[in-house]
């Protein structure tokens, strides 16, 4: 499989790893270099890379991937509550359970294609969300979210409110208050948590590259460009689709697990359709079908959510303090429309502008830049490796 890697592929992987690992320094100027946001970049990067294996390669648009994110999170927290605060069992458990869940949903949903498939996945995710919020509260702790707690004193306390942590107890690991997640003693919050996520992101990226370059990946791309023709040649496409669906579900489970590892709480809203929609937006925004695009899209959206939302009028006044007062007031008034509590507006405008001017997402922008630099005159546009037009077919 590695034989199919070209030299530029290896270069891409090396550059990608270098960029990811140096993020704590390079993001300093834009104020994004703090552990939580860096972790979110890496985690949602994994989520989007996994989503792209399904959507980018096969063109099947799942609107319910957040369900796997949620299942992964719950599985990880239960692993902390029942087994150990060590993150490795949590990771394994999350990926396995998300995989099984994805197999079930994928097996059913992939009986249909196009928008019917999208709605089936959406329906499953929404059912999971609604049930997790209400009826399944004994497992999910509903609105409050499932949290890690101190070891329970007696068996009368429900498992939701008191933990057992069988392995940690058997090993006699001491606990003060509510313990934090660790990797053999190294705590998984803050920067160590980020590097843990970052390494996993690089591994996931590498696996996604392998898939994309393998025969299996070619088959997925063939499904996207013309599934009918494949069917006529006697190839049964469904197993490939199910495999892709399960793999991307496991990616989502891993991302969910990491969310719980860096911050041990799992809430139902992770499964809501807005969360599923978010990963779709990340992928399209960055560039569906490209390797790096989804990670970029994830970064952009999380940056808007975390930082743009925090620029209140005070910070704007600080930023524009070099301007004379009346101008400053006007400029601040203008910008406060887009940042702080208006950050949704920026997000909406960003979606529109990018998709209107850069079909193919941010990556298309890079490609155009590179072309512009490579040879001043514009060569005939290359077909954009995103999705095929589905609109006119009848």
């Amino acid at each position, binding site marked *: 499989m590695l034989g199919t890697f070209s030299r530029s592929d290896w270069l891409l992987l090396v550059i990608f790893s270098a960029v990811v690992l140096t993020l704590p320094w390079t993001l300093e100027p834009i104020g994004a270099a703090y552990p939580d946001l860096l972790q979110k970049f890496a985690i949602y990067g994994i989520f989007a890379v996994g989503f792209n294996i399904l959507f980018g390669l096969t063109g099947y648009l799942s609107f319910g991937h957040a369900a796997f994110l949620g299942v992964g999170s719950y599985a990880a927290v239960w692993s902390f509550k029942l087994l150990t605060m060590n993150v490795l069992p949590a990771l394994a458990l999350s990926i396995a359970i998300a995989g099984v869940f994805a197999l079930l949903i994928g097996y059913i949903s992939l009986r249909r294609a196009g928008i019917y498939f999208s709605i089936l996945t959406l329906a499953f995710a929404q059912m999971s969300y609604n049930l997790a919020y209400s009826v399944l509260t004994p497992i999910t702790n509903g609105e409050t979210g499932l949290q890690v707690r101190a070891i329970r004193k007696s068996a009368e306390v429900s498992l939701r409110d008191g933990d057992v942590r069988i392995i940690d107890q058997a090993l006699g690991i001491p606990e003060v208050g509510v313990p934090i997640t660790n990797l053999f003693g190294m705590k998984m919050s803050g920067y160590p948590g980020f590097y843990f996520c970052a390494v996993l992101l690089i591994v996931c990226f590498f696996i996604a590259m392998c898939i994309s370059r393998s025969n299996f990946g070619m088959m997925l791309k063939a499904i996207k460009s013309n599934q009918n023709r494949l069917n006529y040649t006697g190839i049964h496409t469904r197993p490939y689709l199910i495999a892709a669906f399960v793999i991307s579900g496991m990616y989502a489970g891993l991302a969910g697990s990491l969310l719980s590892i860096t911050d041990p709480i799992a809430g139902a809203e992770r499964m809501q359709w807005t969360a599923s929609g978010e990963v779709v937006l990340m992928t399209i925004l960055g560039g*569906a079908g490209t390797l790096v695009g989804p990670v970029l899209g994830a970064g952009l959206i999380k940056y808007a959510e975390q930082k743009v939302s925090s620029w209140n009028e005070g910070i704007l006044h600080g930023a524009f303090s070099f301007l004379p007062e009346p101008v400053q007031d006007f400029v601040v008034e203008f910008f406060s429309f887009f940042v702080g509590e208006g950050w949704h507006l920026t997000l909406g405008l960003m979606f529109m502008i990018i998709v209107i001017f850069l079909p193919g997402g941010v990556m298309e922008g890079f490609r155009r830049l590179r072309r512009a630099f490579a040879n001043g005159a514009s060569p005939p546009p290359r077909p954009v490796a995103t999705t095929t037009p589905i609109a006119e077919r009848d």
Partner: protein
Amino acid sequence: MDAIFLQILNGLDKGGAYALIALGLTLVFGTLGVVNFAHGALFMLGAFCAVTLNRLLNISFERVSETEKDFLGNPRVEKVPYIEQWFGPDLAGFLLDWSVPISILLTIVVMAVIGVAMERGLIKHFYKRPHADQILVTFGLAIVLQEIVRHYFGANPIPQPAPDIVAGAANVGSWLGLGDNVIYPWWRLVYFLFSALVIFAVFAFLQFTTFGMVVRAGMQDRETVGLLGINIQRRFTVVFGLAAVVAGVAGAMYTPILPPDYHMGMDFLVLSFVVVVVGGMGSLGGAVLAGFVLGILQSFASMNEIKSILPGIDQIIVYLVAVIVLLTRPRGLMGRRGVAEE
């Protein structure tokens, strides 16, 4: 028995709302081939047309009251609507009371303009683009519209009372010889009749006019219609305007039932897509049928008798039905082969 009858009424009422929203969505998809995630936002804009009219009628001048004090102990500034001064309290009172039904006129005009502007300015350029791009751009637009509304109207729901004469509940039971406990809000009955009327009008328009015939032909086979020398493009603009108007009036008339807030469009978005898909993408009849079916099933699933057997069923019934329908009928209730299957 009474309970079941009431739940059927509830279902019809819900179904009317669902059908109205889904109608425009499926119309746009069927003719233009565009997945419009901003459709919920159009519903919300319609509702805010009603709010706007109410605000316009309430534009007031200020008069300092001599007797009353405000919460800080200063003399209270009273607001007197201009229309009260111009038309006298009787007519002004009447206009304010009936502002929601009257707002339909405003809504039709405003939504037609918005719809046409949206199609000409944005949607037109996305006919040939992948569905994913259409989703991204219309979702972005929905957020932008939403935030603009929030900027001017705030995030809280704004109450829009129905006219006094239809504000209370009707004793439906006495009409039908059922018990006294069978009462139903007048406004919901009005809404149901209204939605039936609009649905009927849209169908009649598409069925009995030449324009509608061309649009239906366009839905079947756009290229051939284009080859016949018909300017299908212009008709598509009108169709989009029509979809916007239908969503808008559905929203405006819904305000007395659901006090509108800027987010209400998103709340209906997922549901309306489910309705459209259960009905079959691009099928008008399917959308209406699915709207009513889902509305009625949702009402029944909420009954205590059923919830006690299947806890939480009312939370998931819509999605459960969607899954079952799509697995047994591949293209929804009335979808056509080959539409939106790839």
